């Protein structure tokens, strides 16, 4: 990244955050996971989103983690089920029924 762009980001974006290093980054990452997994409490969510308004590191982690989840969901190819599979399972079940 060009140095002047880095400086611009620092001046205009990062500077509005009170914290650029998070003393509780590991704990925040755990909470972030629970939030993205839709398993968090309302209190956890409120506390976390208030925190990332202030913390540049956790704001970045939030966006990165969300992007990774999206990447997994969208880029991993689903394999089509072979046409014959359902038919052969039904046949095998029929055999068991006759037995």
């Amino acid at each position: 990244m060009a140095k002047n762009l880095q400086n611009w980001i620092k001046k205009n974006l990062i500077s509005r955050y009170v914290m650029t290093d998070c003393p509780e980054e590991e704990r925040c990452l755990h909470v972030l996971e629970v939030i993205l997994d839709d398993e968090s409490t309302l209190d956890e969510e409120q506390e976390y989103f208030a925190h990332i308004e202030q913390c540049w590191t956790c704001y970045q982690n939030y966006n990165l983690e969300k992007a990774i989840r999206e990447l997994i969901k969208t880029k991993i190819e689903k394999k089509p089920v072979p046409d014959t599979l359902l038919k052969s399972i039904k046949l095998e079940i029929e055999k068991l029924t006759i037995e």
Partner: protein
Amino acid sequence: MNLMSEAPKRQYSEAEKAKVFDGEFFPHIDSMYNFAYRLTFDEDDAKDLVQETYLKAFRFIESFQEGTNAKAWLFRILKNSFINDFRKKSKEPAKVDYQEVESYYNSDDVDKAITTDLRIDMLKDMMGDEVSTALNTLDVDFRTVIILCDLEGFKYDEMARILDIPIGTVRSRLHRARNLLREKLRMYAKTMGYIKKS
């Protein structure tokens, strides 16, 4: 066979069995096949595993309570079948040069490390194959929790039942798995030249 042995039994007529299979079990064949494939990395083994799962579901259907989560019940059978019958013969994915990652995995740092030089713009250029390989090269226990949670959308309590582990273990395993996956994605970004080699 100790399949759902703790569940109360329920008797099904032949017509009821057919209804449960058509209405609740067969609609999950797509997810089950994909789960089986990502465990075995072999199309024929995946087919056998799914077929075996459905046959076991038929034999032990008395343990299934209608109205409960059929998908989770089937996934639990599939996972147990994989461990008991398929794990030994399943193929390992092609190994990339991940020695660095493996030593990281074996260290205590795995819970603490945070990848600071992986950025969103790097992820956007990654291909499906690269993401799949990163997932596939995770140890099967770590791969499984990511598949169940991120691809299949199971909740922690459902995963705990599928895997026969406490919810706390589900959470810690997921956390480790995601740290490892992030590290593997970072390795890709490095090989693609997005991150300077140190």
